[in-house]
């Protein structure tokens, strides 16, 4: 188990290294970021200063090594750099130091804030939204799928399938608007929900406050598509499993139907569903721009798109790296899940 996770993590680091290369050459490899920082109006002296500050006067390969040094958790810095960049972490050595730190993602061109701060601020919103959307989609989706499979060829089956086809075909920006308008505006008096709102509200007197009710509508909107897909996958996997010999064995033991379905059939049907769930989850962790935009939810997606619009490359690069790390982690998680669910898939 441990060696399996270690190996997977090693692969994960390789993947991330590839992403770093790609990201660097896409956003820093060409063009002159200094111009982006200062805009159209800067005089040449300012530009030169910025170039120096961002090490843009160095050759490209050196820029890349510096960037790698910045994002790597283990890196080397001179004492001055540590001061200048505000790097924290375990420092070893006196003048030129070996530093073990949280990856330094540099600073935004526009706001000059540290990218990690910007991302960390949005992360709780994205995490809670993705988690709750997937929780909603998984619980309802699996239940609907099981129901549809067990009651195959009845009205329950066909309506579940119909609803899921509807869910798959409805784009989130459309569903988002419909749901926000319907439940956050028309029926607001009954639901007590608002069209927009983030995870935290900032009150002049009491400071930051958790606003969990704001989560409901965006989570549902975001969960509809994965829900539809999970329903369909669960249904087809369950139908396959219900025809297996061991289901007959379970019935022959004298088990109740519910025990057969949930204890014997469902667990065997879960593997394709887990693939879908983890895939979607990782994707939602990259942020969901439309939903965040419509509901005014503060999350990674909106920050990334905004940064792209302003050509604020460090933020974009940071969020790409963050998303890639999520993908690697979630995939590792999925592999572990496969093994837990199905002992035959245990490769560790």
């Amino acid at each position, binding site marked *: 188990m441990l060696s399996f996770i*270690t190996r997977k993590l090693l692969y994960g680091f390789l993947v991330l290294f590839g992403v770093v290369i790609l990201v660097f050459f896409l956003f820093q490899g060409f063009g002159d970021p200094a111009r982006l920082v200062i805009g159209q109006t800067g005089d040449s002296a300012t530009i030169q200063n910025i170039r120096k500050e961002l090490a843009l006067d160095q050759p490209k390969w050196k820029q890349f090594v510096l960037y790698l040094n910045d994002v790597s958790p283990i890196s080397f810095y001179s004492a001055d750099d540590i001061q200048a960049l505000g790097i924290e972490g375990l420092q070893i050595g006196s003048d030129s130091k070996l530093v073990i730190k949280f990856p330094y993602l540099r600073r935004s061109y526009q706001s000059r804030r540290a990218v990690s701060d910007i991302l960390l601020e949005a992360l709780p919103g994205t995490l809670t939204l993705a988690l709750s959307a997937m929780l909603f989609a998984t619980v309802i989706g699996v239940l609907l799928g099981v129901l549809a499979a067990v009651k195959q060829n009845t009205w329950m089956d066909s309506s579940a399938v119909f609803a899921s086809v509807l869910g798959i075909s409805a784009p989130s920006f459309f569903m988002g608007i419909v749901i926000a308008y319907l439940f956050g505006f028309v029926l607001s008096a009954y639901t007590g929900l608002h069209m927009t709102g983030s995870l935290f509200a900032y009150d002049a007197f009491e400071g930051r406050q958790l606003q969990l009710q704001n989560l409901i509508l965006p989570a549902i909107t975001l969960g509809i598509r994965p829900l539809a897909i999970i329903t369909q996958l669960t249904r087809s996997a369950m139908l396959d499993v219900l025809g297996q010999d061991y289901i007959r064995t379970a019935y022959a033991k004298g088990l109740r139907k519910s025990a057969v379905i949930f204890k014997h059939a469902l667990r065997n049907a879960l593997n394709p569903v887990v693939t879908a769930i983890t895939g979607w989850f990782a994707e939602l962790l990259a942020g969901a721009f439309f939903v965040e935009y419509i509901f005014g939810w503060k999350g990674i997606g909106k920050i990334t798109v905004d940064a792209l619009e302003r050509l604020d490359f460090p933020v974009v690069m940071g969020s790409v790296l963050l998303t890639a790390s999520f993908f690697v982690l979630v995939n590792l998680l999925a592999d572990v899940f496969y093994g837990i669910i199905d002992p035959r898939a245990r490769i560790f």
Partner: protein
Amino acid sequence: MVGESGSGKSVTALAVLQLLPSPPAQYASGEIIFSNKGKPCDLLTVSKDELQQLRGNAIAMVFQEPMTSLNPVHSCGKQVAEAILTHSDMSKEAAFKKTITLFEDVKLPNPQKMFHKHPHEISGGQKQRVMIAMAMSCNPQLLICDEPTTALDVTVQKNILGLIRNLQQAHEMGVIFISHDLALVSEIADKVVVMYKGQIVEQGTTTAVLASPQHPYTKALLACRPALHQKGQRLPVLSDFINDTARPMTTIVTEKQTGTDDNNRTEKIISVNELSVWYPSKKNLFGKTLDYQKAVNNVSFDIYKGETLGLVGESGCGKTTLGRTLLGLVPPTKGDIRFNGKNMATATRHETIAMRRQMQIIFQDPYSSLNPNKKIGDAIAEPLKVHGIISNAAQRRDKVVELLEKVKLTADHYHRYPHEFSGGQRQRIVIARALALQPSFVVCDESVSALDVSVQAQVLNLLNDLKKDFQFTALFISHDLSVIRYISDRIMVMHKGMIVEAGNSEDVYTHPKTAYTKELIAAIPGKAFGSTL
């Protein structure tokens, strides 16, 4: 209960516990009376709850496929304990303890460890023992065994039969034992019911039915077993008894096949030298192989032109891997294979394609070795097309029809799909496909193992006829020594990746040298009654 597949014996057994999915199944008429501790009840009319009470408790069942009948995601012990917990108010610990005692009763090795093992970690025979332990867990009054040993090796089959018999006597329970093999049933049953096309055609005590079978179907079942016949004799088939009653049985049995000349076979078609095929079984952190599963371990032998070489051994002994390696489907780890004197490993691409044309395989499972989306005619025509033998579509069609007729099918079958055929017919289609290229070497990998005894006789006859016709050399792989003895000139016995014995088939069969071969021969069911017939 004896009958061929599709005769309705499994359906009858499943109906007892109402395990047939309904719909589509309908119980049109009749009743199933079960005497539950002296209290008779009709199983077709009892309520759902009562039925659940009976299932696994008063009536238990062991199924045919041990590989698929256990849930792969739960440990063996849990699955057995579940049955106990369902029907008693025992505590979990007590149920676990009882499971381990049951595992001891069914002679599973290391019951404590076996409890935590998952089905994929144990052998087929062990799985069937777990199934029997599960069935026995609530001391049932009736045990239904639906072909419990069909998927198992003969040696394992013998042990399982013994186990069922012992349990039956110890617990004084009734057993319904279903099989397509009358000989097998004769070893275990007191009373025999013969089913044919959904009806009971004969029933009586085992000795009475075996000694004087009345129905032609029963007679055919008894006569068509290859164990009773000399090599080269045409096996009697079902139609000899059922349609063609005018032909007396004796002439059919003694009709000797000509053209099997055993003399001076010296030309080697295949020569195998110190061949090993290993699969990595354990790898370290960096993917370096630490340990190997030695499927084929250092074997050397020759196959002479025109002969049929039988390869026998239990499942997992490496015989299938060996067959596939000969065809170049599995790369050898060590050693070399020479086909007509040419080393296969060093052959050029062009030469390899030419060799492939000369070598064909007939697989075990006729159900999965035909593409369900392809018309059988096209499936047979495909190799002709791939190797560019007949480029004209019309001529190819004629050739396919000719092949179909050779395997006793008709031109009408050309445009049909595999699911429209029975198992025996499919196997004949697979044979036609293999023979389309007129190969000089054919590997028959358990080609008749999935078939009923009666259908098996037809296919064996066909293979004998075709061999005479097409003059090919064959490697016949099977776990059934009686089939191997019937069809082969020479026999090789394989055990744990190595060849333990080889020789002329009659010599090996009648005077086995190694203990393993003796064990295999002793395990052939129905030897006792076969010799008296």
